[in-house]
């Protein structure tokens, strides 16, 4: 009887004992990290929709013997039902497509090229990751942080380096939120006072409803035919946008941008948090990933601004190079940063509509860059 009671009692507090043992320190550190993510999300407003479930998932998976990440456990089930098979990021893409208005971009379609320049950081970071000794597949997954697009980063990483998913996702979402802090010094360093005060002509309203309706179909066809491996990314974002512009499936559009996106965001966040188990997460690799992710965003910004300078020169000063920094996917933060920097040097300079066009171009650009990268990798036999 006494033995039975002692055996029963030994089951209580086993988590605490494991945590306080010498083997438990990685879980202890990650519990603090989960708490820090919750603090950032709740108190600082840093991407709370993602960081709150990620932070909580991180805490759940680091409490020893909880079993949530074992076969049949809640977090493992969520991971397998939507991350391992890339379903969740694609469902979120339908919602994103339903929320995007491409009108500012369609007013001036050449702004799409800013969306291309804003992705150069992806490919430069790939070289840096390779130089640091990461494998081909790992380097691809780290470089994609430069897409500045959470779902794209998750989609690519879950295919090529699922063991890096936690670090890549947290880096991608954190740096997206830090765009207003990361970009301005680079923008100022690469432009002259004269360039920053360039005023751009007010765009005319020139986009018909039919153009807006057909644009997502054209993007799907052109992008899908050039880089078919990325069709799931392009196709889902354009499906959402087509539903929005068609106006005949308002219920589906609303469900995509609200209920479906919200439920999937919760599941996705928890599933990503489940990949942050201390023993697997606390490695020098994770630190390197955060460093490379930061560089990726800096390189994107620099490439965008330098491309803007070239366009400014080619158009004899009709384009403000600051909007080049908005050619990344972080919407609408990057556009607001360009506007704020422009107004810092000329209070009456209104760059927002142009920057918003470049920013939506960046949203398409990030998906196209990922699609191109995936198609090249497939052709190289790296799947």
């Amino acid at each position, binding site marked *: 009887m006494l033995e039975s009671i002692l055996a029963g009692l030994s089951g209580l507090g086993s988590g605490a004992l494991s945590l306080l043992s010498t083997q438990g320190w990685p879980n202890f550190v990650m519990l603090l990290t989960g708490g820090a993510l919750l603090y950032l999300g709740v108190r600082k407003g840093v991407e709370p929709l993602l960081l709150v479930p990620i932070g909580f998932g991180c805490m759940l998976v680091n409490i020893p013997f909880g079993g949530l990440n074992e076969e049949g456990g809640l977090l493992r089930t969520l991971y397998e039902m939507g991350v391992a098979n890339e379903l969740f990021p694609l469902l979120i893409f339908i919602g994103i497509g339903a929320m995007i208005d491409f009108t500012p971009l369609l007013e001036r379609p050449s*702004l*799409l090229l800013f969306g291309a320049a804003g992705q150069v950081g*992806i490919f430069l970071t790939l070289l840096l990751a390779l130089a640091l000794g990461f494998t081909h597949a790992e380097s691809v997954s780290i470089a994609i942080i430069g897409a500045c697009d959470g779902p794209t980063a998750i989609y690519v990483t879950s295919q090529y380096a699922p063991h890096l998913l936690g670090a890549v996702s947290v880096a991608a979402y954190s740096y997206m939120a830090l765009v207003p802090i990361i970009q301005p010094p680079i923008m100022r360093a690469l432009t002259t006072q004269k360039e920053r005060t360039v005023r751009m002509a007010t765009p005319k309203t020139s986009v018909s409803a039919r153009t807006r309706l057909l644009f997502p179909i*054209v993007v799907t066809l052109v992008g899908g035919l050039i*880089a078919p491996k990325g069709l799931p990314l392009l196709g889902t974002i354009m499906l959402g946008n087509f539903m929005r512009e068609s106006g005949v499936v308002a219920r589906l559009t609303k469900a995509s941008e609200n209920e479906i996106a919200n439920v999937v965001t919760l599941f996705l966040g928890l599933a990503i948090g489940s990949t942050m188990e201390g023993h697997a997460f606390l490695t020098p690799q994770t630190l390197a990933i955060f460093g490379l992710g930061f560089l990726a965003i800096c390189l994107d910004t620099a490439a965008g601004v330098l491309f803007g300078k070239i366009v400014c020169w080619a158009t004899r000063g009709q384009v403000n190079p600051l909007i080049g920094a908005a050619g990344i996917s972080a919407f609408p933060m990057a556009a607001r940063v360009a506007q704020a920097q422009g107004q810092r040097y000329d209070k009456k300079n209104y760059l927002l509509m142009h920057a918003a066009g470049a920013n939506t171009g960046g949203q*398409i650009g990030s998906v196209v860059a990922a699609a191109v990268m995936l198609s090249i990798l497939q052709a190289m036999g790296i799947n």
Partner: protein
Amino acid sequence: MDKWSFGLTLLGVGVAGTFLTLWLLALAARVLKKLFPLEPEERP
């Protein structure tokens, strides 16, 4: 494939492919605007 061939191939083909695709999309958007201009009733 060694890492530099891999990285430089992705850099060259990736950047060129991204620019080319987005340039084609910009071209297609221009064509769409020409084919379907703003109708008078759509003007603000």
